[in-house]
Every structure is written in C-alpha cells, then in structure tokens.
C-alpha cells in the first residue's frame, strides 16, 4: 500500500506541474508597433510621413515608372499611344492611398492629443507637412482618376465601414485647397539638413498649380485663374526661388535643392529602380528602355533650331555620333544622366538624380498662363514670364528682350495660351508633367492626329481618366467611363 501511496504523489506532482505552468494565450508582442502605441513623438509622426513618401516612390520612381509604366501613354515617350487601357496605372491609385493612410494616422494622432505636450512650433510643422502631403496625394489622384473615395482623419475606419461612394472632383479640390493653405501657414521656408522635405514655397507652388488645374478641365472654374496667378505671384515676389541662369545647370547636382527645384522625388544611389542605363542608348552602353518618340522630338527640333535647351534635356548625340546614327535611331533623355550624374555613378549603375515634382520654371509658366487667362489676353507680365523661360533656353539673360527668341507680340489670348502649353511641353518634358497638361487642356484628339494617326479610332475622351482598379471599382459601385471591370 505504501508503494501506491508514493506513486500517487508522484503522479500528483506531475499533474500539478502542468497546472501551474499553463501558458498565457494573450499576445504581448515584442519588437512590434501598432497604431495604439505609435504617433507619440514628433519623430514617430515624421517617420509615418517618411513612410508615405516611400510608398509614392514605389509608384513614381523614375525609370520603371516613367520609362515603362504609369505615364508611358503621353506623346513624349516612345511606345506611348495616348490610349489608356483597362487596369492601367492601378499602382498609382493604391500607393497614393497607402500614403494617405499613413498621413491620416498622423493627423488622427495629433487630433487625439497623443502628441500633447510637445513643442507647439514643432507640432505645427508636423501638421503642416501632413496636410501638405495629403493635399499632394489627392491632387495627383483627382487629376488621374476623377471622383474619389475621400478619406480624412475623421473618416470612420474604411476597413470596418466600407466607403461606397465617390466624392465629386470639386469637393476633393476643396480639401486640397484647405490642406495646402494650412501647409502654407505652418511650413518653414527651408529645412536645413533635410532639403527633400516640403517647404512653404512648395505648398504655394502646388496650390497655384491646383488652382490652375481647377480653372481648366474637367472643372473649368475659370475664376481660379486669378487665384492661380496670385498664388504664383506671391511665391515669385517672395524671392525664395529663382530660375537657374544657364539651362545646362538646371539639373546639375548642386542645384538639386534650389534655387529652381522646389520639391522633388529623391533616391539613394543604390536604389535598383534608378539604374541610369534605363535612359541611355546602346552606344553609351545603355539599355535603351526609356526613350523618346521620334515625331515628338522632330517637332521640337524643327521649331527651335539650335536651342541649347535641347542638348541640356535630350541626348541628341554621343561622342560625335548623332542620334540618327544610334542603333535605336532615336534621341534619348538626358535629364537623369550625365553630366547630371558622374561617370562613376553611371558605370556603377547608380544614380542620385532627382525627379522634380514642382520647380520654379513651372511656377513661372503657371503665372504666365493664369495671368493671360485671368486678364483676358496676354499682359506684359505674362509675356515677361513666358519669355524668361524662352530666353533661358538659349542661355540668354532672363530680363533682356530678344527678338529672335521672344514670343511674337500682340497674340490673342488663345494663341498665347497655346504658346504657354507648348513651352511647358519642352521645358518640363519627361518630368511627369505632360500627361496632366494633356488632360487639363483636352489635347488628346489634336495629339492623336499629329502623332498617332493609326490610333485615332481608339483614343477617346474616356482616356482623360485612368481606370480605377477593378476591385475598388466594384466596392465603390462605379468605374470611370470607357473601362470594363471584369476578370
């Protein structure tokens, strides 16, 4: 009996051991952040905004985006045919919204007071950046996709409460305007060691561009021309930014962050999406992935003989070989390669060139366009603005009239407007800007006739908007016209 007694207690201990060592089933993650314990410091807020820029870089990164992808259908790039197909550009939509989700997190954190107690001025700058970035994201989305699901820090969690309607374009612009205005009031004029961050000037410039866009298609609210003009003028008068005098210097590394470049996408040298060979012809040991439509280039070359800007922005010859004799028999894009990066960088497949989002030349042209349209005809100020760009293209003094280069006097409002758009086509070529001009000025038919007659039946007004990704369109219950949502 005693034996059994011992056995009994041995068993008891064993089982008791189980009872006391039961593991807790609640998860207490280590090394893991969730929205509940984030957004507690300025640095964490900044990190979320930084994350939002990384998302945009995925969709806009040079080379893979302009060269192959989301903007290839304009008239400037080879293989573009002005015709937007089903499913095109969907990652712009998703990456912008990914960015907005991160930005709204910061704004929600600020509103909830999770940053209470930090320096007011720092908090205002953080909020300023958040509003600025959100406005920029919606500005890109509303132009590309039209009516949008509008999500702000006050919107109930869309994962739990799905959004099934699209906010009209005009209302999206209302948010863009108020966000940019907030940013103008709260952003600094410069950031010191972090020149890639948005400034007050960038907010002014982009708001001017937003007003100008509101004045044109699809809203056509022409009262915004004056607002665009005034906003551009305010920035020009402030004197923070200016045109780089020589056109060949605009993209030089020392000018990456001013005085002309206001806000750009930047990348590190080892970023795989920026291999500069994407932009260059075989004769330069390049891969020739992204190059220029020959007809578009010939148009420019014919219209402006011997313009130094062409050589500054395009690869028209290499080592004495003209583009006609390249293996590819077409010109290439210089803005992102030598001399704007070093030979060493090039040979190591590296690039630290920037991709401008807004630069001062753009602001000057916004001013010229808005001033002309608001005043009902080209004023001397409008002429001065436009001519400063034309003179710079020839490396001439910006403020000295030059009959050969300056635009002919006495143009009608329409003719001047056309001249501005053409100047934008050349000056801002291959900077992601052309497609937005095409859609706000409704140029598709004209350009199809000129460059893609084989495609005339296929290019329609439906191509002024990109399609919404299928699944999102299904949830929203609407797709942009001309696109089918199917498998």
């Amino acid at each position: 009996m005693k034996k059994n007694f011992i056995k009994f207690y041995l068993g008891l201990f064993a089982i008791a051991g189980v009872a006391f060592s039961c593991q807790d089933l609640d998860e207490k993650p280590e090394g893991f952040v969730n929205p509940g314990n984030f957004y507690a410091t300025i640095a964490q807020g900044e990190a979320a905004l930084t994350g939002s820029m990384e998302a945009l870089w995925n969709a806009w990164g040079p080379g893979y985006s302009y060269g192959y992808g989301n903007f290839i259908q304009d008239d400037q790039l080879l293989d573009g045919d002005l015709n937007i197909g089903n499913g095109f550009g969907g990652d712009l939509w998703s990456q912008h919204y990914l960015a907005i989700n991160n930005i709204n997190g910061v704004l929600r954190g600020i509103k909830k007071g999770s940053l209470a107690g930090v320096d007011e001025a720092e908090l205002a700058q953080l909020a300023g950046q958040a509003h600025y970035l959100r406005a920029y994201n919606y500005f890109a989305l509303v132009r590309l996709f039209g009516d949008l699901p509008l999500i702000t820090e006050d919107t109930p969690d869309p994962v739990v409460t799905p959004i099934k309607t699209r906010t009209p374009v005009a209302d999206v612009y209302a948010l863009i305007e108020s966000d940019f205005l907030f940013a103008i009031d709260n952003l600094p004029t410069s950031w010191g060691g972090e020149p890639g961050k948005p400034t007050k000037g960038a907010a002014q410039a982009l708001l001017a561009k937003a007003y100008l866009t509101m004045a044109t298609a699809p809203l056509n609210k022409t009262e915004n021309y004056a607002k665009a003009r005034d906003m551009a003028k305010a920035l020009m008068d402030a004197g923070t930014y200016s045109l780089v005098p020589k056109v060949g210097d605009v993209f030089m590394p020392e000018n990456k962050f001013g005085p002309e470049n206001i806000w750009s996408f930047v990348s590190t040298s080892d970023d795989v999406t920026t291999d500069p060979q994407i932009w260059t012809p075989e004769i330069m040991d390049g891969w020739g992935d992204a190059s220029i439509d020959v007809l578009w280039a010939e148009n420019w070359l014919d219209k402006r003989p011997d313009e130094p800007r062409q050589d500054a922005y395009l690869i028209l010859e290499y080592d004495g070989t003209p583009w006609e004799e390249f293996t590819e028999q077409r010109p290439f894009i210089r803005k992102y390669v030598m001399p704007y990066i070093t030979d060493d960088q090039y040979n190591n497949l590296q690039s630290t060139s920037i991709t401008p989002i807004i630069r001062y030349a753009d602001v000057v042209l916004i001013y010229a366009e808005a001033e002309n349209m608001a005043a009902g005809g080209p004023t001397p100020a409008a002429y001065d603005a436009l001519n400063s760009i034309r003179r710079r293209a020839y490396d001439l003094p910006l403020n000295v009239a030059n009959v050969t280069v300056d635009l002919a006097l006495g143009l009608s409002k329409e003719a001047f407007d056309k001249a501005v758009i053409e100047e934008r086509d050349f000056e801002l070529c291959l900077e992601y800007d052309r497609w937005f001009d095409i859609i706000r000025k409704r140029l598709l038919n004209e350009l199809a006739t000129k460059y893609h007659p084989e495609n005339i039946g296929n290019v329609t007004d439906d191509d002024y908007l990109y399609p919404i990704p299928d699944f999102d369109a299904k949830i929203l219950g609407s797709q942009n016209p001309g696109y089918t949502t199917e498998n």
Partner: protein
Amino acid sequence: MNKHLLKKNSRAYCCMLICLLSVTGSATTVLATEARLVNHVSAKAARFDKVISGRVVDENNQALPGSNVVIKGTTVGTTADADGKFSLSVPDDTQTLVVTYIGYAVQEITIGNRTEINISLQPDLSTLNEVIVVGYGEQRKSDLTGSITSVKGEDLAQLPTQKVGEALQGRAAGVMVLSPSGQPGGPTTIRIRGMNSINGSNQPLIVIDGLQGGDINSLNPNDVESMEILKDASATAIYGSQGANGVILITTKRGKKGAPTINYTYTVGVQQLRKKLDLMDAGDFARSINDNKATLNQPGSDVIVPTPVFTDAQIAQYDKSKGTDWQNEIYRTAPIQTHQLSISGGSDNVQYLVSTGYLNQKGILINSAFQRFSLRANVNVDITKWAKFGVSWAGIKEKGNTPPFGEGASDIDPLGQVVSLAPRWGAVIPVYDELGNYSRHPSGFGEPNSWNPVASGREPFIENNTMRNNLNLYLDFKIAKGLTFRVTGGAVTANRDNYRYLNQKTLDGFKKSGTGYVNASEYARYQNSNILTYDKHLGQHHFTVTAVAEQQVEINRGSTTNASGFLVDGAGIFDLGGATTLTASSLSTKRVINSYLGRVNYSFGEKYLLTASYRADGSSVFGANNKWGYFPSVSAAWKLSEESFIRDLGVFSDLKVRGSWGITGNQSISPYATLAQIASGYNYPYTGGDVTDIGFSIIRAANPNLKWESTTQSDLGLDMGLFNGRLTATFDYYVRTTKDLLMSRQLPTYTGFSSIIDNVGKTQNKGLELTIGGDPLVGDFKWNTSFNISGYRAHVVDLGGLEQLPFRTTTGAGYGFSTNNNTALLYLKPGHEFGEMTGWISEGTWKSSEADEAAKYAQLPGDIKYKDVNKDGFINRQDLTIIGHAVPNFIFGFNNRFSYKGFDLNFLITGTQGNDLFNVNRIRLERPGEGTSTALLDRWTPDNQNTDVPAFISQSTRKSSFVGVPAKVSVTDTRVSRWVEDASYVRLKNITLAYTFPGMTTSKLGVKRLRTYVTAANLFTITKYTGYDPEVSSFNSSDARLGVDFGSYPTSRSFIFGIDLSF
C-alpha cells in the same frame, strides 16, 4: 466580453485538471475494483468444476501482464496480473483456452488434465498484429478504425537524396511528395490527401518520437524505425488545431536488449543534370537576332531600316566556334557521399543506441553544396517494475549553400539569377572577356541589363548553418494494473547562422560596392505532454482510455545586419566594420498552444471497434475573441473476417470495413497576425544622399475575430486480406470540407491596405485511394510487390463573396504577367478546381491559305492564331479561358522487391497523370529578339507553315497592312496556352541491386553481416514535358500556385554505390 470568455475557459481547465487529479487519485481504488471484478467472474463461475492457473510470458520468459485468457467459444475469461499470473475457474468439459496479447500471436491451449499451465507467447510477425504508433499511444494494426499507412525505416535508408520526406514518395496512397527543386538540402513538399488551405500551410504535422513540429528532412534516414501516416480525421483529430493536413508520426530507432551491435554503412555516388534544354548555337542565334532586328523598322518620317546586330563575318566565326554552352558552364557532375555508424545494445534494465551520420553532397549547380552531421543517442532505463524512463538527444549540424536561382531570393535582383538566366544568354557571348573578367551582356540584343550567370552562380559567398538539438525524455509510471501515466518533455531548438556576401563581380555587389548580410536566428519549441492511459479487458469488452494535458511554446528570434559599400571586397561579410552602410533589423515572436484531449477505444469480441476522441486547443495566435477551438472525432470498424459466415468462406484472412468522421484545424498563421501593425523599413532619403530617414508604414489592419480553419473529414475504408495475407488491398474514399479558411480577404486599396487576413471561404476535396500489395512468389525466389494509386478533386466552394482570388506566379521581370492589373495566371474561383490556369488559347499560327480569315482579326499569316472563345470577332479579355490544370488526375507508386539467395532487387516507379505545367522559362527562351531556344528555328515562314512558333513580321508591313483598322487582337500579356505543357510522367524513381554475402563468408572476415548495393535514382523518366523536370513547383509556398515552372533548380539523376557492415 473577451476577458469574460477567457475566465470561463480557465475555469474549464481547472475542471479538467481536477478530473485528471481524481483519476490518478483513485489509482488505488481502481486496483481494488480490478480485484473485485476478477472475483466477480470467479464467483459467477462458482458452479464450474475446476480452476486452472498459470503464467503468461513472452519469448524471453518475461511476464505479459494484462494478457487475456478466455475459454474458447465463450466470453468467460480473465486477465493476467502484474506477474503474468492468472487463475480461472472453468467447466469440467473445457477443452481449450485462447490466450491473446497485443503484438503476439494468438495461442490456443489444449488443457487436457492440467490445472497448472505456463504459456509462452511468440511475437506476431504478420502485419495485422503489428503494433503501430498512433497519436499519444499505440495500437494493434488490426484494431485500427482509421486510415493509417505505415512505412518501415528500412525502405528509406537507401535513398541517395538523404531526405526522409522525399523517401515517402510513391510509398503510401494519398501521399503526394514533390521535390520542388533539386537543390541539395532543399525542401520537400508533402501533401496528405491533397490540399484544402489556400493561404495556410498544407504541410502535414511532423511528430518525431512524440514531439510535434519536427523537421522531417533534417532527420538522418538511417535513424528512422518507422513512419506512420495518419490520414483520416479519426487518426488526426487527436492533434486538433494542427491536424488538418494529416500527421506523420516518426519513431526513431532505440536500443534493444542484447550484445552490442556495430553497424557501418558507406555510400558514394554521383549526380548529374537529367536533361538539357535545346538551345541554338552561336551562329543560329546570331542569325535569329539579325532576322528579328530587320523587322524592327521604326516608323519615323521615313521607314528606317535597322542595321543588323551581327556582321556576316561574325556569324561565320560563330558557325565555326559554336560559342558558349551556358548550361555546361553552370551545371556539373557532382559527388555525394555518406558515412553511417551506429552502436546499440543493452541489458535487462538499460538499453542504448548511439548513431552518427555524415552526408557530404555537392549540387549539380555550381557553388551549391550541402553537408549534414548528425548524432543521435538514446537510453531506456527500467527503474523499478512500475517506473521507467528514457532520454534521447539528437544533434544535427547542417551547412548548405546555393547561389540564387529562379525566384524566391527576394533580396537579390531577379536579373542576377542563374538557372533561368543561363540558357537565356546567347551562345555568342563568351563567359569571360579579353581581359579575363566576366563578360557583360552586350547591348543590341537579349537582355543587356542582366548579369553574367556564371558570375551570379559562382561568385556569391553563401553559407547557411543550422544547428539543431532535439531533446526528449519520458517518464512512465504503471500506477495500477492497466493504468499508466506518462510524462514527456521535449525541446526542439534550431540555431541558424546565415552569411551572404555578393562581391563586386555580382550585379548587386557591383552596384553597391559589395553587399551582404549576417543573419542569426534562434528557434525553440518546447512541449510537455502528460498522458494517462487506462487499458481494460472485461471479457469480450476491451477499453482503452487516454487523457492528455499538453502545452507547447514556440519562440522565434532573430536579427539581420545588411551591409554594403565595402572598402575591401575580399574581406567581405566578415569585416562589417569595413562597410559604409549598415542596416539592421530584428524580430521576436512567440506562439503558445494549451491543449486538453481524451480518447476512448472500445472493441467487442475483436469484431466491433469504436474510437472517439475530443481535443480542446487554445492558441495564442488567434483573435482575442476566438482563442479556443474544439475538435471531436468518432470512428467505427467491423471486422467481418471474425464473423463465422465470412470465416467459413475460407477466402478472407482479413476483411474490415471502417468509417470515420471528425474535425481538425489549421492554425498556420503567424503570431500577431490578428493585431494591427506599423512596421519599420519604409525609409526615404529626405537628406538627398544615401542616408535615409527612418520611415514606418501601417501594413496591417486588426482582426480580433480571427480563428482556425476547420476541416471536417469523413472517410469510408475497406481492408482486405486474401490467401493467408499473400494478397492485401486497402481502399479509402474521403470527403474533406474546410471552412473558415485563413485567407487574405482583398480590401479596396483606398483603405491603405490591399488585404486583411480573415476566415473566409470554403473548399472541398474528395478523393479515392487504393493500395494493393502481395507476395506473388514465396520460397527461394521471392517477390514482394505493392501498388498504390490515388486521386482527388479539390475545388473552391466559396471565397467569402469574392468572385476570384489571383495568385502571383512571377516577379514580372519581363515575363509579362503578374497579379497587377488582373493578369494573374492562377485564380481561385468558387465552383472551380485548384490549379486552373487562365489565359488565351493559341491554336498554332495562321497559314497563308487562311490569310482572309486572319485579316478579320487584323492579323497576318504567321501570327499566332488565338481562339475567339466568344466568337465576337475580337481577341480580348473576354476570350480568357481555362488553359491548363495543375492538379494531377491521379498519382501512383509501384514498389517491387525481388530476392533470391543473397540478391535483392528493389525498384520504385512513381508517376502522375493529367497535370499541366506552365513553362514560364519558355516565354523568354522563345521570344524574338532575345530567345535562344531552337524552337525559333522552327518559326513560321512561307515554307514552314505547320508550326506554332510565330513568324518574325516586319513592323512597317504590319502597320501598312491594316491602315485605319483598329486592332482586333489585344492579348496584353503572356498567359497563352502555348506555354502550357502536359507534365504527366512515369519515372523509375529508384532502383537498387544489393547482394548480401553468405554468413559463412562473412564470419570468416569477423563480420556479422556484409551487404553491398548499387542504386540509381531518376534513371529514366517518360514525359512530354520539355523543361528540366516535370516534378517541379516553383511557387511552393502556397498550393494555389501549383503548376508553374520558373527557374527551379533542376532535379538530378544519380548513381550510388554502398556497403553495409555489421559486427
């Protein structure tokens, strides 16, 4: 609410614990009851005339407590006590007693005049009475009510691959084994009864000596005593939330009583590429490039005719030299060798076994190799008559390296990879340039931004070290007669050290001035199981009751340091201080499972069998609202062969029908997946330089309701034995339905997320399995054979309202399809089967005689003729249809063993029927302007119209042919049936010829046993598939992506010689 539930649950554990305690506590009571029951029988038999007493022992004269002694033809009987003694009152006319004990042959004893009888039982060698391992216990094979296949360790040892998982291929019905890549030390995909989960793992649970979550391929095959494959719910439900994919129980060898035995085995062999792709030599390639170039006449203001890439002089030179054979440059004949040494033996109280193994394998791809050193030791000790313990330890050191190949090496630029790229580099490119450096791809043809494949293969320094420790101990108490309590504790740990350095001769290293990482991680899984078993015979009734309380904890930790910008390329990753950029990351996760389970086995008269089990699992990885899950099962069997009306037929030595039903779960999601997450690593350089600002991004939305996938499985089975067991057959039909699938539920991307993990959807899988085995020849010349065949149909019932789910099957690096923009190859759709490929059907090319018909589609003769599925005059997305099926109709294995005197011939044929592979590699190998495949030589020309390879058509001709006619064909990506190939195959997987030297010869040499053998693996394969191997799956991580061949490491053919010595 959540807290409340938890409280309720913890109360539930307490109740169960108290139950357990009281069961143990009443041990003495049980013992007393036992005695009373025996007395009861005696009392009832009081009118009987004589008392027979005696002792039941085994072949070694050891007592067999619990053996049954029954009067033949009645239910009157008793069981032997702890000393094997029994006493039974019997009627005077009693002639015969029947004595049974699990694992021993039934013995009938004629009493005669005796009253004192000692009975010695002999172990039962027929498989029916074989005892096999089941979850948390063991059972006699003939008593099984579930579907379990047993594989013997000796069938595994000769495999050249040294992977236990792979050794299962073709051996068991319903078990599909894929070697998705031929990489040494690479993974094995095992599917028991196909697939049910879409997002979760479909890999079965591996239990090694009772420890769950083992790694099957790190085992030394020589250490395996037996493997049991648990297939139906009656067998697997005992593993609850981890049992849905089936369970493989592995028992390792242990020491046996007797003098020390030393066994030594040595094998050596070679492996080689099974087949090469047909590629053009340099001259043909250059001509093909030129011919295509001539068609690229760009429309500028005038049609510009391009200059040829290669001059005639160059081509003449290429025709002479034939150029580089890139496949020969990256593949080689590779050696493999193993050593095995084991010592075992033991006394009555202590038994031991120590075994070591060493594997050294080079891969057929340059710079790939695998080494494994393993040591396993175990000791069993009988402490007293009622307590014993055992301890085992296994240490396994693995070291492997394989250069990046195909897809999956996410941190490597896909352009720098080897297997898919080497055949795409034209034969005109030399491996080295004039200076002896690796050549760069010239511009003008092919893919100039890709990297020299030999450099990508040979230059990376990659070393992956894993040190595994498996520690396992048990303590057994016989608390009372029939009542045992077993406590087991175990730990499985794996420490990994991975080093990778890409020097400046590789693409990434070149761009980043040398780049690499150091990664260290630690994995540990602890398990404690407490098993109480009560076994009771009551006349014809036999009960076994098992109750278990168990807990498991799994911890993963690791850190990685990425470095680039090395000042000194040679020092590489071992001089992190010399790197200009360092980025670090680390992680830690923990998973906890608490479980309580019980099982009852009941049999009546050896004819009627019933098993019921129930398990409750609490798991930390699930949502706060769903921590606990419950998994019941019930099964029954009827042994018809025990019924006199069947026995009297004299045909069946065994005939049994089985039926089972049960629920199992799948909890394979990562810890913390139910919580929202903001993650680091989304940096952006506001500085404008190479220093990035730290960025965080919200990457996951919370889902507190997440719970297990649950699989309900029903199985109907029939076991048959004829001609005294010389012919056996087993047949099973099953239906498995899985609901609450753990899946990414797509979210509209404007939420900021693309998906959330949720329990959505339902799949169903129905299948048949048949195994036929037999011994057609016995005697001197023996032939043992077995054939198994199985098939299933898995389809999606529901995706939670979603119409379809796309799966990514390339990185999109120039192959032309992806999940972006709805251009996925593989979708799951409700009502459709797994593995359906979506695309356009190509029906060859348009012939000249069909020019008018072609023109209706604005196509020219020589263009691909697509099928206008909806006949609307356009080829567009409305014409997308099913172009292939990845899941085989059936798979089979045919295993044979012939033996004559000392000779032994053993071969295994395996195969699949009715499955397709999408051969992604061909898309670029056959693309004009870069393709190297000889298929391009067979392209359409006016003289060669009977081909499915399209012509090279001049762009200006095309534009001028259909001016003003809108395009009618918009095949916007490469999902075309042209790339779908029948991947059915029949393969001689393994053939071994062995000779065992006669005892006389060996004893002269002082050797107990001497055996030599030669083995060939993958000796021949019959298939129409044109890729390296039909047995691949490049996207192995999810079963929804089966059937894609994209740059997989090719399987090899190998020849091995071995020698086996025992002392």
